[in-house]
């Protein structure tokens, strides 16, 4: 796999040349005898129509999407220039990419772009769409939408004001007009900018790569669906943990520290830290707490500690922190920790707190700790075929993922 030098990714496909403006009506009319003399006027008319009815397909993924909505609202009112928002790409002219595009989303953006009929344009709204903002060096975000589809107008900002977006649309109108008239000239690039703004993470380009591999990657996020259709629970996955109704315990409220000390054999509770409980007693403790009125699940967090050498040598280990809460006036939180060896599975809490389902999936996805008895232990954040668990300390934050970055 060849790793190219970052500047190369800034080939800026849009500026390379005016896009081919394929106009079916125009072509038909031109071929009609006698009409070609009117070509100039017709040209004007079509370009006028195209630039004055820019219907937007909102590729709104995050914060910038809110400003895109605000641009359609009464203060800026994009409708003044005839711009309306169409929900289907088939009837849109401009894709406004507003928000961060992740590796999981990028194939979809491309698919949607390809569904838009020519002539079409793209506006990259906000730093995320332009360059990936401060997420650009992270494993899951692509460094700018122009690595996926050609961009015509960049509207910088985080987020750009609605007025800025409207300005961007007006600039696009100018560009359409100039392109049609053949006078459009791509602005000169400042070569210095290319080095100062380049991402530190290389774009992975592999000449020997089998294109079907890329297709697989594109389809990767659909794997979940495919498995859902065939609907086999992953081979060997256990039956869901049994649920036992937890009868409420009416005994008077007890201090949580006393409880774990007396009933769960925790002798030493460090100040300011949650008590460390044996893994085998995890579920029992949760069930006991639930009976005591800690009805709400707060969090399940796994953290990874890499192996250390030298003076403070320590083996690799994981730690799971978990908390539940009583509701109502004077709400109390009970939190405890489990120490885990690498590869050790934790019994799932799904049977006690239904909400543990997604929490544990997320921790499994990001740290790789397995939860025994979990009914559906699949990745939740990353695509199904992702390699590695990003929140481990040995996982570099800027691990590249072909082909999208």
């Amino acid at each position, binding site marked *: 796999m060849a790793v190219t030098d970052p500047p190369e990714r800034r080939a800026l496909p849009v500026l390379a040349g005016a896009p081919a403006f394929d106009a079916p009506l125009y072509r038909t009319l031109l071929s009609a005898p006698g009409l070609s003399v009117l070509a100039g006027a017709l040209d004007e008319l079509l370009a006028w129509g195209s630039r004055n009815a820019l219907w937007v397909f909102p590729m709104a993924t995050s914060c910038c999407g809110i400003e895109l909505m605000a641009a359609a609202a009464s203060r800026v009112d994009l409708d003044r220039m005839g711009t309306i*928002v169409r*929900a289907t790409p088939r009837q849109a002219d401009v894709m406004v990419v507003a928000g*961060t595009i*992740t590796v999981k989303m990028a194939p979809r953006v491309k698919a949607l772009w390809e569904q838009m009929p020519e002539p079409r344009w793209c506006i990259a709204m906000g730093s995320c769409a332009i360059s990936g903002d401060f997420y650009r060096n992270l*494993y899951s975000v692509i460094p700018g939408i122009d690595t996926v589809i050609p961009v015509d107008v960049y509207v910088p900002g985080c987020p750009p004001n609605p007025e800025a977006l409207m300005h961007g649309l007006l600039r696009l109108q100018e560009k359409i007009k100039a392109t049609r008239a053949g006078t459009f000239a791509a602005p000169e690039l400042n070569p210095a900018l290319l080095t100062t703004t380049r991402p530190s993470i290389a774009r992975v380009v592999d000449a020997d790569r089998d294109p079907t591999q890329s297709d697989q990657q594109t389809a990767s996020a659909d794997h979940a669906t495919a498995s859902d259709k065939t609907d086999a629970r992953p081979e060997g996955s256990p039956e869901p943990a049994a649920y036992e109704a937890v009868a409420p315990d009416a005994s008077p409220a007890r201090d949580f520290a006393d409880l774990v000390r007396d009933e769960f054999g925790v002798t030493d509770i460090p100040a300011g830290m949650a008590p460390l409980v044996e893994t085998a007693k995890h579920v029992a403790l949760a069930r006991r707490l639930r009976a005591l009125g800690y009805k709400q699940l707060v969090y399940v967090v796994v953290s990874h500690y890499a192996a250390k050498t030298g003076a403070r040598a320590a083996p690799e280990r994981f730690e799971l922190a978990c908390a539940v809460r009583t*509701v109502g006036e004077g709400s109390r939180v009970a939190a405890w920790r489990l120490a885990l060896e690498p590869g050790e599975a934790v019994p799932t809490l799904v049977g006690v707190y239904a*909400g543990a389902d*997604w929490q544990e999936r997320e921790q499994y996805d990001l740290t790789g700790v397995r939860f025994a008895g979990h009914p559906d232990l699949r990745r939740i*954040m*990353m695509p199904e075929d992702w390699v590695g668990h990003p929140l481990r300390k040995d996982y570099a934050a800027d691990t590249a993922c072909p082909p999208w970055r």
Partner: protein
Amino acid sequence: MQTQSARRGRVDPHLSMRDYDPEADLMLLHFGPQHPSTHGVFRMDLHLDGEVVVKATPYLGYLHRAVEKLCERLTYVQQTPVVDKNDYVAPMTNEQALNMAFEKLLNVEVPRRARWVRTLFAELQRIASHLLWLGTFALDLGGALGGGSTLFIHTFRERELILDLFEEVTGARFHYNTHTLGGNRHDLPAGFDVKVKAALAEIEARLDGYETMTLHNSIFVARTRGVGVLDGELALELGITGPILRASGVDHDLRRDAPYGAYDELKVRVAVEQGGDCYARAKVRVAEMRDSIRLVREAIEGVPEGPLCGFKPIRLVGQVKATAGQVYVAIETPRGELGTFVIASPDNPTAPHRLKIRSPSLHALSAIPYIVPGATVSDAVAILGSLDPIMGEVDR
């Protein structure tokens, strides 16, 4: 096959389609990740029997921006603008939750004025956020080419009033980066209270109209009442917080039950509804907006004089250091309990070893496999809207 959770009298979130009536002619509808009413990039796969949903499978991660990993790379000082982008409808709440966690970790005292200002901002954010929710919910029910968009644009107009206030304080429409360790960075400008009151008066006056257009409108009621009923016990188990929990009859609000900021002095009236359906959720949010208006009025009157930040001015990114400790701090955002869990370790004293953001929206969405089956596609849209998910916060 009767599954475990079916025995609990609940919908089985992991219903196996193999076990479903093989005669049924099902259709699999991919709903999202790019769809006009998924509120961002959320996807759910709906197995439809006619128009009735048999199983709803949510998929997340289309906006996974690796914020937690990023926070491990940045120092304590650098993180506020990063977490701003999580809940992008109420960005200040993210800053507040994060900085409160760091303050607890480092034992930093927050001056009283800063606590009041933070509370004032938080309540303004709640109004803005609920206004946006009301508009987008109407959009879900009424469409972009109809009455829905009329309400949507009107609530956006009111939201702009609040954004103007924030712009005056911080210079930004959102993503403010105004909270910092030990207090706030931007002080209230002169004459701010007059402007706040004027904006509130305008919003309050129009809120009545919106209430008529929604809560008292027969179509709205028909579309929301009895739709997506979530029972309180399940909501608690799923970790659902905020207006959704209160709409399911559970009287729980961190502002009152675990006070922070100025809520020990400002008393919150917690709105609780018993219905558990979309209508109850709407009702709770509208009541909260009214209560927030009252709280902002009280807060702006009561902001005490004094310093705005209790920590020495930040000059270096690596200035703040912590070597040990684990803290969890939670606040009540417009969507519920937003918590920050920080682990400090001696390996890297300037940055957290692990930072987890406990987002209310993620928990809210986990109700979908339970409450969507049995509803129609139209209801699924209404239910999703009533959960008010912000994908930036769900996927982080």
